[in-house]
């Protein structure tokens, strides 16, 4: 009798859940469904088999990752495919895949084609280190691409450096990422420049003079960019009226914003990632604050407008490129990306695309595919024509490029200004 009851209870809850949940198929969640949620986290042993399998001859891509056949190069990518920064990983991965598809269609490098293995680090530093270890020791990749978030690039980069495998980070801007060692390089600008860009835009274009900052103490990117902005803003004659911090994972910022409201600054600088930025924007308006919101490239996601809604309208952020730039390289890339994925590429997709193409370019120049030779070839890249600008890797293994400022208007970022390197 009890068993029957338990069964009936199961039936009831199953039914009620079945009613409530699947009706939401067309919801914004549907976008999550397209991400490879097949659990390719480092702890479970299924690599993402769909990546880089676009040419018909490349059927071997579905074979286990451990078999590195002689006629292909395996490239590893670790990214946050799930979690609060999920669009970072997804966009970058799509950009890399598009690049691989093109390179393979053109015959590959030295007669060999590329195959991509992507692992999800779930947005956790520890998982990032595990993912890179696994890419290097088990999958024997020639090079590693990733991450977006600087803290995770630092975690993964240390592993790559120890193992002597080159790593290119597409979009980690914290200065200390490439300071790990000669194996680590990047195709984007760094935060001291980004902080300067934001400060200059506020001072010269918006002509505003007081700023408050609200940053994430637990993210290297956020804390570093906060310092860089403060320094640049003060040098340009602005005044930082208050500086507030939070810890990643916080959802309620009302206490920090109350402190900021007391000082009534012209702008609030928020060097966080998009989920928190959207959240903060909403709470800023809820408190009745009218300050202009400014952020960095961590805001770059379609989710920003979805979460921030009306509150994020009129906010500015610095980025690596804008899809509205009229340069032929940009328009060509936007067209190809739209054809393949049906969406406008964000800056992270463009940087993923550039990083992969730069890697392929370096491989044509490298003496061999050993880690040392390949790193040397990457580090000596000069005037590489990328979507996000002309890339020259400098002595600190960073790229020097202009930055753009985007303005949120009508639910999407619009091009506002370009700021050149000092």
């Amino acid at each position, binding site marked *: 009798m009890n068993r029957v009851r338990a069964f009936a209870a199961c039936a009831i*809850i199953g039914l009620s859940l079945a009613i409530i949940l699947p009706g939401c198929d067309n919801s914004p969640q549907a976008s999550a469904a397209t991400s490879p949620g097949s659990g390719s986290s480092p702890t479970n042993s299924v690599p993402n088999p769909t990546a880089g399998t676009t040419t018909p001859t490349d059927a071997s891509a579905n074979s286990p990752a451990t078999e590195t056949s002689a006629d292909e190069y395996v490239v590893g990518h670790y990214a946050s495919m799930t979690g609060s920064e999920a669009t970072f990983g997804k966009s970058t991965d799509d950009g890399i895949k598009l690049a691989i598809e093109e390179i393979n269609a053109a015959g590959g490098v030295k007669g060999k084609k590329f195959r991509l293995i992507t692992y999800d680090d779930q947005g956790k530093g520890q998982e990032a280190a595990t993912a890179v270890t696994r890419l290097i020791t088990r999958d024997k990749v020639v090079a590693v691409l990733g991450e977006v978030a600087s803290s995770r690039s630092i975690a993964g980069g240390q592993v790559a450096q120890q193992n002597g495998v080159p790593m290119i980070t597409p979009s980690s801007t914290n200065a200390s990422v490439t300071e790990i060692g000669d194996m680590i390089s990047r195709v984007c600008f760094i935060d001291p420049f980004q902080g300067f860009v934001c400060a200059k835009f506020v001072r010269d274009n918006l002509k505003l003079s007081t700023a408050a900052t609200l940053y994430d103490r637990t993210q290297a990117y956020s804390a570093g960019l906060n310092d860089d902005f403060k320094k640049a803003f003060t040098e340009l004659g602005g005044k930082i009226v208050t500086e507030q911090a939070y810890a990643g994972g916080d*959802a309620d910022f009302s206490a920090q914003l109350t402190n900021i409201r007391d000082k009534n600054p012209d702008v609030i600088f928020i060097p966080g990632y998009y989920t928190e930025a959207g959240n903060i924007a909403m709470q800023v308006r809820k408190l009745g604050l009218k300050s202009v919101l400014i952020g960095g490239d961590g805001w770059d996601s379609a989710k920003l407008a979805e979460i921030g809604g009306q509150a994020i309208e009129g906010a500015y952020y610095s980025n690596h490129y804008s899809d509205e730039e009229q340069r032929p390289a940009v328009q060509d890339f936007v067209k190809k990306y739209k054809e393949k994925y049906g969406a406008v590429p964000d800056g992270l997709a463009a940087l993923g695309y550039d990083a992969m193409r730069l890697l392929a370019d370096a491989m044509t120049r490298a003496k061999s595919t050993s880690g040392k030779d390949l790193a040397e070839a990457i580090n000596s890249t000069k005037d590489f024509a990328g979507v996000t600008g002309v890339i020259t890797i400098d002595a600190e293994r960073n790229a020097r490029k202009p930055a753009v400022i985007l303005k949120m208007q009508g639910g999407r970022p619009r091009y506002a200004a370009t700021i050149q390197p000092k």
Partner: protein
Amino acid sequence: MTKFLQTLMDGISIGSLYALIALGYTMVYGILRFINFAHSDIFVLGAWLSFSVALCAGWTASGAPLLFPTWLWTVLIVVSVLGPLLYVVERTALPALRSSLGPRVPHALAGGFVVTAAVWAWVLVGLVFLARATTASASFRPLTGVVILVIAMGGCGLAGYLIERLAYKPLRAAPRLNVLITAIGISLFLQNSGQLKFLFGTQPQKMPELMENKPLAVVAGVAINRVDVIGAGTAVALMFALEWLVFHTRLGRAMQAVSYNTRVASLMGIDVDRVISFTFVLGSALAAAAGFLFVMKLPGALRQPADTGWVLLGLKAFVAAVVGGIGNIRGAMLGGLFIGLLEYFGVAYLRPELRDVYVFVLLIIVLLVRPSGLLGKATVEKV
């Protein structure tokens, strides 16, 4: 002064939600003497259920309401036809067969339960449609909120009931440590299964906004938000309802009796299993309400189910239960408010990035100075 009042209001607003969650911890502890670590995941389930129902009810910022998939209708209709049919067969044909053929004829008793399931299902469908109907007109939106709250509370109550029945009840006689470990297992199971693609997925979502994101009034420089007022009001109303239920009804008295001494209570004719089930349903429903109010207050904070931010919220509610005196219902309410105020005043007046530190330092102090909590009675544990 403005800052003080604003912080006070924010602290009360979040504290009342901690209190709602803490009640579930404290009630279960009061009766079964173990910490139900899966409770914070019920809170998460409540938040995500609210989101799902809101979407099903067409309560999005833009776009048409979502429709139920056709297979669901098919299942519903099959179940609601099959149920009564089985029931009728059991009532009419089977007893006759059984008397002539002996006990080999199987029971179709499940028919009755299928009917129950079908009724439940239709009630839920009806509620969702009511929600959808009220969404169309802006003036009825509060009603939509109530419907979502009811469905979330019902769904989580059911989940709580099932967890108790399937996971904890078989361990009633086992050592307490086994139950504790099981609770952690259930917690992990809920977190990770919630991330399945066809459930809630792995990305954070934004709860559609019930009310305009604007201060209702600004009094003495303090922004008073409609959402906060309604949220705190609902929480307080639910706490009053619980207070009445526990201290002024037969069932509540039975709960108190079981909490005082389970064996004697069962000797006095109290159905202990039922009281325990009821406690779980009640606690889970309150957690679901907290989940709903939380995502109403912070629509952008609907993180993926396994996000550590949720665990932290659950832990703070647990601290609230301990600070108030675990096992004591009024203590949990007081503890929740206390934790909320402590956290927000700490963030506003001391260092903001240490918000979790204040709460856990308080836990340590309470455990050192007054281990039984603010309102708890000191008991002597026989070793």
